[in-house]
């Protein structure tokens, strides 16, 4: 499994691997936001947590299709399915790589964008906490969606439609935790619920995704 993670990371950073694409997308969305609602710093800092969460979610969505599509096209997925690694392990490795190449860079970029939107330091810390707990859920749910649409040519749109509703709990609790934190309220409940959603999806979805893959490979 570590082999698979290392290989996928290597592919991601090579030319055409797509690493940095979603990062750039996230960057652009958040930078464009002040243009669309004007330079009112009060207003900006109020909507900043929600904006950053929404940006992270959309950026994450952008790179989901690649998770299995490339391996499906060149036959690697068939070979992985017949290899000694269980398909559940493949799913976990893929989701983890997706988080490493999308979620983690987004989190690292967030402090700079937070400043850009007028967030206080404490607000940024809470926002980052909520992103650390929430983005792994985005990756594993997205991997499940990618497994569902793996055989479909240009299934990107269908994938978005399937996956976005599943992102609702993470978005609600994540943005809520970040908002409460930045306004100085207690945020424990939201963070715990967010963590609950993340852990639950990581516990269940690898099995679901693996069985969906088995059906799609037939």
């Amino acid at each position, binding site marked *: 499994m570590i*082999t*698979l993670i290392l290989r996928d990371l290597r*592919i991601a950073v090579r030319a*055409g691997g797509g690493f940095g694409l979603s990062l750039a997308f996230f960057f652009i969305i958040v930078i464009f936001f002040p243009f669309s609602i004007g330079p009112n710093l009060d207003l900006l800092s109020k909507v900043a947590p929600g904006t950053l969460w929404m940006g992270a979610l959309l950026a994450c969505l952008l790179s989901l299709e690649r998770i299995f599509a490339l391996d499906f096209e060149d*036959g690697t997925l068939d*070979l992985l399915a*017949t*290899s000694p*690694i269980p398909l559940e392990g493949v799913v976990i490795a893929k989701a983890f790589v997706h988080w490493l190449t999308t979620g983690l860079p987004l989190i690292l970029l967030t402090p700079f964008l937070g400043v850009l939107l007028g967030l206080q330091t404490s607000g940024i810390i809470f926002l980052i906490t909520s992103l650390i707990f929430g983005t792994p859920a985005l990756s594993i749910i997205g991997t499940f969606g990618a497994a569902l649409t793996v055989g479909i040519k240009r299934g990107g749109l269908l994938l978005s439609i399937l996956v976005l509703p599943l992102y609702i709990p993470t978005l609600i609790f994540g943005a809520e935790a970040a908002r409460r934190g930045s306004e100085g309220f207690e945020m424990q409940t939201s963070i715990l619920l967010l963590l609950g959603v993340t852990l639950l999806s990581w516990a269940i979805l690898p099995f679901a995704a693996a069985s969906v893959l088995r059906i799609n490979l*037939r």
Partner: protein
Amino acid sequence: MAISIKSLSVSRGSIKLLQGLDIELKSGHAGILRGPNGVGKTTLLRTLAGLQPVDSGKIEVPLEDICYFGHTDGVKPTLTVRENLEFWANIFGSPSIEEVAKKFMIIDLLNIRAGTLSAGQKRRVGLARLGLTGCPVWLLDEPTVSLDETSVKIFGNIIKDHLSENGCALVATHIDLGLENSAQIIDLSQYRPNSGELSSSDEGFL
């Protein structure tokens, strides 16, 4: 007994392709699947590899003994040949790729990006995976597509070596691999279901 199939039926989608298929292959022997396009060679091999469910009948091969090689090579274009091979070597826990690379004549290509290889070279890289797995049972689906004559001969010899090490291979192929004298030739067209649903076309793949 390396491969033992008893009264197997398989289908592709909702169309029944093969019925009442019996194959017994001892280790050290090869089987060659013959039959027109669409008769079910690929479907049979994918079923044996565990990628497709069995309709009825019995397959007695442990899945971990099987190495499947399909139409596609599974070679990553952005990685070098060495990285491609090392990946599979790590997955299957085999130590050295050099020996295998020599055997499959890709030793000079190891540091080249796989995306720049020709189709035949790429296929050889894909086939080299067989040498890395250490699995005794090879299921090969048209392995010689885009290989030149010399490579086909060499690959035939590699299969023979594998058989002499008590391996076993089931090959779907239309061309002569040099195994025909010793191999069991299985013509799949005689196992078509009687209903005549699939009489003379490629319908199974549409």
